[in-house]
């Protein structure tokens, strides 16, 4: 025992000394010791106790220390509550300072009795039990409070947060009974809670508001991998889920209901949506408080007698929610607090921290640090290894590492974090940076070509197809002078593409300048062309954009404005009804279901089937034009009416009015079926051979709503005079006495191309089937943004004919696939919007009225 005094435990109930209600570990005042400054600490948590440790380490005789803690227990390592919940640790294992520490250091601990007020005049504080304690120096370390979303049912029994040991005990008690748990919040805490509850045998659903898990720490790619892994482990992960209500019966929670109507059963609901600095005491005492308690670089508040540290503070505008910054804060605090009276030199103080994140879920390796929002001058270096489930991304700006996201292999996390914090110039190791520390510091060579050259002939290059270096070199020497040629001759790099870099090195080593660039890749983000991407989506059953990017080793983290819309289309085409249409990957017109104009307003074109209309439709259009002050209405080149000058906020209401008159979107904006142009045909025209108008309407009813590589236009003319201009359409029908001539690949646009005759058929039904089959062949084979005319020029009419007619049932099969896909496409996009879907795309955030505010 130290000379500072000796101690007795008072009010200490029998049994459990670490977890008792109101406990005071009190010391008797030393009889003869000189009067010391009284340091009182509010908060017996990680920062408060560490600050005391730092102070004692500098000057153990300076203060007479009393610590107040709301929790009825000694100081423990809060971050280890997750392993306690998961059953990997017991409470005893995570105690930082047991009762003996307080005793040995002459510290009075008052636990289980929260401080309720601070009186700065008298320099005293009062606890809930009425205890009044004087201080000379006060340290506030009250941490944070979990944020509770204000939804109905939040007070029900069984709704818990995840902050202290009591919360863990509540979760464990629930888990003992089994059943279902819903965790609201897919951030660090929420996922650790979900993991623990799942290990304890509960059926767990995580409801997360944002589309990506841990979106503050992870990018879309890593968030997707994390989600897939958690789903593989049996958790249900709901992203984009906005909680409307927590439902209950007899005062106990029974489930969670989302705003979109989905419901999930729950015997326990864990709210882990965020934390708020616990500033109530400080605010009431009149200290400067913004988001947190405002402190200077020495952790001193606006009252020089009061310091604050930990999650409750705001330092240089920043609040922290991780422990690493707290350690730095505590050092600065102690340096200053233990400074000799009259010493003129002030310690340097705390300058803020850069933080990094790891997730404590066993078997999931994830690391993130710094800024990875990209942009100016920032360059992404991405490495993916699909077979090992690895995604690594480092962000470099001005030759410095500014951010890193690692998934699957985090071994280099601390190395990157160190480079990041030190702001070191990474240009000497730039090429090797993404391969990690071992490679960058004295790996075989910084020149990847030299490293590849050093490989032995039987070294495996392509794991997917089992191709050795020798085989690749042989195929290059045999005439394969481009990446694409290597892929098609020896299959190396043809599957997942992860060895593309190696193959490129081999090409460079073997051929030098003679390497030929292969056919165009889809965009600069990938080494694959359109056809390969489409093939691999089917082969590997890829069903989401981030999954395609991971499996096909995309070089950028989230693609670009070229590949995202293409991938979205390829997925929708490959897996009708099975994939989510990614709105943020769509061009504005397809996102808004209207055509953007040069002034930022929109034009709206309702469908007029086959160019036919009626008084009801015309009246509805006229009403819309008047009601929304549309400055212009015009007959389009596609036989329908276009309403101009509609504001994005008004679109849903305009559509609702048009819907009410039975009209649906005309997709005048879409890479999809536009119009079916018709002439009057045999019903009226003296030359008409068939009912061209009727067939046009039928074709439009069959094909509308379908997403295609590019826009698609159809026309039906009633005789070879061809008034509907069918021979410059993507699919044109020219009626003749004996039936129907079917034409394809016409284009009236930039480069006029007359159609090729595909075939002649005798009946309307056959014409419809061939039309459906042709569209499907185009949908499945053309490149995104390639119209039928350039597609046919590229592949040849014979190829198209072979695809349709070589097998006697090809037409039937293609048409069946088309009709299946249409089951999921033919719902009017306007109806959903008019009913409120995607309202955020239409509504402004708010409106600023400066004049009003200035007057106020």
């Amino acid at each position, binding site marked *: 025992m130290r000379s500072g005094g000796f101690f007795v435990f008072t009010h200490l109930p029998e049994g459990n000394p670490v977890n008792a209600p109101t406990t005071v570990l009190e010391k008797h005042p030393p009889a003869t010791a000189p009067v010391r400054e009284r340091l009182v600490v509010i908060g017996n948590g990680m920062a408060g106790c560490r600050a005391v440790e730092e102070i004692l380490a500098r000057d153990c005789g300076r203060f007479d220390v009393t610590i107040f803690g709301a929790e009825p227990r000694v100081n423990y390592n809060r971050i280890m509550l997750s392993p306690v919940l998961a059953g990997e640790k017991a409470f005893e294992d995570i105690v930082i300072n047991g009762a003996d520490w307080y005793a040995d250091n002459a510290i009075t601990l008052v636990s289980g009795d929260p401080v309720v007020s601070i009186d700065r005049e008298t320099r005293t504080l009062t606890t809930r039990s009425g205890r009044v304690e004087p201080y000379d120096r006060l340290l506030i370390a009250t941490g944070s409070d979990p944020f509770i979303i204000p939804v109905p049912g939040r007070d029900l029994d069984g709704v818990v947060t995840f902050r202290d040991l009591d919360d863990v005990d509540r979760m464990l008690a629930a888990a003992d009974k089994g059943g279902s748990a819903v965790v609201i919040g897919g951030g660090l805490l929420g996922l650790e809670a979900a993991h623990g509850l799942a290990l304890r045998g509960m059926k767990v659903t995580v409801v997360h*508001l*944002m*589309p*990506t898990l841990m*979106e*503050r720490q992870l*990018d*879309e790619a890593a968030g997707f991998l994390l989600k897939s892994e958690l789903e593989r482990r049996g958790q249900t992960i709901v992203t*984009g889920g906005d909680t409307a209500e927590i439902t209950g019966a007899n005062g106990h929670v029974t489930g969670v209901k989302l705003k979109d109507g989905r419901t999930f059963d729950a015997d326990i609901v864990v709210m882990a949506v*965020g934390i*708020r600095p616990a500033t109530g005491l400080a605010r009431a005492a009149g200290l400067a408080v913004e*988001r947190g308690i405002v402190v200077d670089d020495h952790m001193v508040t606006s009252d020089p007698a009061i310091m604050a540290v930990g999650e409750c503070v705001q330092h240089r*505008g920043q*609040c922290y929610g991780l422990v690493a910054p707290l350690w730095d804060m505590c050092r600065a605090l102690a340096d200053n607090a233990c400074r000799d009276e009259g010493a003129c030199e002030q310690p340097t103080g705390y300058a803020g921290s850069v933080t990094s994140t790891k997730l404590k879920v066993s078997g999931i390796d994830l690391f993130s640090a710094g*800024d*990875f*929002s*990209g*942009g*100016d001058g*920032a360059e*992404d270096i991405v490495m993916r290894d699909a077979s090992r489930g690895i995604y690594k991304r480092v962000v470099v700006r001005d030759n410095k590492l500014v951010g890193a996201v690692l998934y699957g292999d985090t071994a280099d996390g601390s190395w990157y974090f160190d480079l990041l914090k030190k702001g070191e110039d990474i240009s000497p190791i730039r090429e090797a940076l993404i391969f990690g520390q071992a490679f960058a510091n004295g790996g075989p060579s910084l020149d990847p070509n030299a490293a590849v050259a050093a490989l032995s002939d039987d070294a495996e290059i392509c794991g997917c197809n089992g191709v050795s270096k020798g085989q690749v070199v042989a195929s290059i020497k045999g005439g394969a002078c481009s990446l694409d040629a290597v892929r098609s001759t020896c299959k190396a790099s043809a599957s997942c593409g992860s060895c593309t870099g190696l193959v490129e090195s081999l090409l460079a080593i073997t051929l030098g300048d003679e390497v030929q660039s292969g056919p165009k890749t889809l965009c600069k983000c990938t080494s694959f062309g359109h056809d390969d991407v489409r093939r691999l989506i089917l082969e590997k059953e890829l069903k989401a954009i981030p999954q395609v990017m991971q499996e096909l080793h995309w070089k*950028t*983290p*989230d*693609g*670009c*404005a070229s590949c*995202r*819309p293409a991938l979205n289309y390829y997925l929708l085409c490959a897996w009708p009804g099975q994939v989510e249409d990614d709105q*943020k*990957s*769509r*061009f*504005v*017109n397809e*996102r*808004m279901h209207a055509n*953007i104009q*040069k*002034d*930022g307003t929109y034009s709206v074109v309702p469908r007029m089937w086959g160019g036919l209309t009626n008084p009801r439709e015309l009246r509805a259009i006229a009403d819309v034009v008047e009601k929304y002050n549309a400055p212009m209405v015009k007959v389009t080149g596609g036989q329908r009416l276009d309403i101009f000058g509609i504001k*994005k906020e008004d679109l849903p209401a305009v559509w609702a009015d048009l819907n009410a008159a039975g009209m649906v979107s005309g997709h005048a904006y879409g890479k999809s079926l536009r119009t079916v142009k018709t002439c009057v045909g045999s019903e009226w025209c003296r030359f008409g051979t068939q009912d061209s108008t009727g067939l046009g309407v039928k074709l439009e009813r069959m094909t509308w709503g379908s997403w295609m590589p590019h826009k698609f236009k159809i026309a039906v003319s009633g005789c070879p005079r061809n008034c509907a201009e069918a021979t410059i359409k993507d699919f044109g029908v020219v009626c003749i006495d004996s039936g129907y001539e079917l034409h394809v690949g016409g284009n009236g646009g930039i480069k006029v191309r007359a159609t090729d005759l595909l075939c002649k058929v005798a009946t309307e039904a056959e014409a419809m089937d061939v039309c459906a089959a042709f569209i499907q062949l185009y949908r499945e084979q053309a490149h995104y943004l390639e119209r039928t005319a350039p597609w046919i020029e590229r592949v040849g009419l014979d190829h198209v004919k072979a695809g349709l007619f070589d097998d006697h049932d090809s037409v039937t099969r293609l048409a069946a696939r088309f009709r299946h896909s249409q089951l999921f496409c033919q719902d009017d996009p306007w109806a959903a919007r008019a009913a409120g879907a995607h309202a*955020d*795309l239409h*509504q*402004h*955030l*708010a*409106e*600023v*009225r*400066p*004049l*009003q*505010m200035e007057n106020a």
Partner: protein
Amino acid sequence: MMVGDWLDIGPVDQIAPGTARTLPVVGGEEIAVFRTQHGGFHALVNKCPHKQGPLSQGIVHGGVVTCPLHNWNISLKTGEAQGEDKGCVPVIPLKVDAGRIYLLRAAVLGQRAA
């Protein structure tokens, strides 16, 4: 809605990653508030330096938005056109605090036509 020099325009959750929303300023220029895929927030005057296209309606990738009218790429951080294109749109200083988005009041009002 006012907090000192900063204008509180609401919680971050109102803007989904990879999208933007708009903030009209009465008598001034409409502002586009962007959220990148990786949680970066940026505000620009909602007018492309090329021909005033509404940048809020473009596709956001990395720290860049592609203008919906003629595909210029505009940096969300500096407002500058990328690549060969030349031009710059005013950036409105923005900060995120306690889950809410704030715009620099003077810059918001400064966009007001004289």
